[in-house]
């Protein structure tokens, strides 16, 4: 059995039934494009959420009067904590430099002294633990609290919690949407393939009567499905990629900084996708087409 024979059978049949082939390509295109759009949005949200979570930070301000020994003791305490991913010491000078960078030279130019306190920036491993970590610094004597408050320890308490809740909700919703559209894609494709095979069931019957094995009959159909799926999914991947790229550019140029969420340009790097989202989408479409053919053929090759 020759591969070239099967391939020429597949191409011949697509040329003859080009309307059906086009319909199948368009079906794959639409369903994969929707699937791709959902996945891109989900990946973007995921990355956004990750970067948000990473930015959940506790700032601990240190009294100007603290001795180096006291500061070191505080640092050792931070080092000893389990829930901490990283920390960074921001000296008074560093704080001023940042301030200057952000608000301009003019404001700080004639300051007689540096009013900004030194601080530790602490990143927690798990955004949910931010509360309990922060509380451990509340009553530390080195911390620059106003009397009767804990305002020397700063972190976004309620905001963070709400944001995280929303993100996890959106994430769940996206998974559900992905599932629904993936199922719809399989259904649509297998229906299209079934239609085209139904139109050719007499051919299949004749092939069987001449002694063709089931796989001999299947191969051209499977290749046809594979090629159809490949073309449709490649178009869809290109479409999604261009759309994603356009939106990313638009957001960047319009200076919208929605929760500092960036739209990622996905190509080879694609979040959770081993090959990148677009190649994965393409392969997925091709496999979908092939499997759709197999499933649709099953009833004609039973006995």
């Amino acid at each position, binding site marked *: 059995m*020759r591969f070239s*024979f099967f391939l020429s059978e597949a191409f011949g049949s697509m040329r003859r039934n080009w309307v059906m082939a086009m319909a199948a390509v368009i079906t794959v295109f639409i369903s994969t494009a929707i699937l791709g759009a959902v996945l891109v949005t989900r990946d973007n949200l995921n990355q956004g959420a990750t970067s948000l979570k990473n930015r959940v930070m506790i700032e601990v301000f240190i009294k100007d009067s603290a001795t180096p020994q006291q500061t070191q003791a505080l640092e050792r305490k931070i080092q000893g904590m389990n829930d901490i991913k990283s920390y960074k010491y921001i000296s008074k000078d560093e704080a001023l430099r940042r301030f200057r960078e952000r608000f301009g030279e003019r404001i700080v130019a004639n300051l007689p002294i540096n009013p900004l306190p030194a601080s530790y920036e602490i990143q927690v491993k798990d955004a949910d633990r931010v509360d309990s970590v922060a509380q451990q610094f509340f009553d530390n004597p080195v911390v620059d609290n106003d009397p009767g408050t804990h305002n020397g320890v700063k972190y976004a308490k309620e905001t963070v919690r709400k944001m995280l809740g929303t993100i996890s909700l959106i994430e769940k919703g996206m998974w559900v949407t992905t599932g629904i559209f993936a199922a719809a894609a399989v259904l649509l494709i297998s229906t299209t393939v079934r239609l085209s095979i139904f139109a050719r069931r007499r*051919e299949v019957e004749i092939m*069987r*009567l*001449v*002694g063709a*094995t*089931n796989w001999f009959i299947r191969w051209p159909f499977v290749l046809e499905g594979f090629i159809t799926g490949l073309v449709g999914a490649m178009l869809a991947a290109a479409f999604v990629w261009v759309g994603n790229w356009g939106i990313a550019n638009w957001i960047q140029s319009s200076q919208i900084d929605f929760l500092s969420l960036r739209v990622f340009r996905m190509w080879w790097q694609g979040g959770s996708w081993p090959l990148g989202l677009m190649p994965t989408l393409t392969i997925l479409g091709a496999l979908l087409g092939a499997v759709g053919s197999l499933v649709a053929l099953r009833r004609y090759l039973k006995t």
Partner: protein
Amino acid sequence: MIVFEDVIKVYDPDVVGLQDFTCHIGKGEFVFLVGPSGSGKSTLIKLVLKELVPNSGRILVAGRNLGTLRKSRVPLLRRNIGCVFQDFKLLPNKTVHDNVAYALEVVGEPRRSIRRKVPEILSLVGLAEKTDSYPHEISGGEQQRVSVARAFVNHPPLLLADEPTGNIDPETAVGIMQLLVRINRTGTTVVIATHDRDMVNRMRRRVLQLEAGRLVRDERRGSYDQVTEEVGDAL
């Protein structure tokens, strides 16, 4: 070549296909199956191809028991049986050449030998000029000859024909029959289901007559109708 032992085939809503059917067809024989419409001729042919499975009884083809033949071996069985149908059963999207070549592709014949064998058999059936035509572009008789070519291109030991001359004019029918005789001379067993009285009477070959699924006559050098004393007297 073909053995039927007490074969019963009943179609779903209690319709008799074959009943208590026993017969033996030897290697290299040339046999006509005759009988009125609905008597079970096509049923018999489908049973030999294992397109149908009998309700009871035993069928042997080339020594193989079809009852114990695994599903996956059915294609192998069919490759050793050439088949000609009343409605030709040609692949509509393939040219005359490719239709015949398909039977060779199926058995994995090398390309070079396909290139040699197909034109050979097509000129044997007189269709050398129609090589690149599609089935719908040629006449019924020509289509039938294509299907004979396809059935024989593998040189199978057994050739079944279900009303091969049913749809074509008498002269062309004679041509087809001569083709089948020639094929038979190469040693291939040929079984033909037919309503063609003149043909059967002219050829005087073995005749199996069916009636409502039963074998009612098995005659060497037989004719289409049963010539009995009474009928002879009446004439």
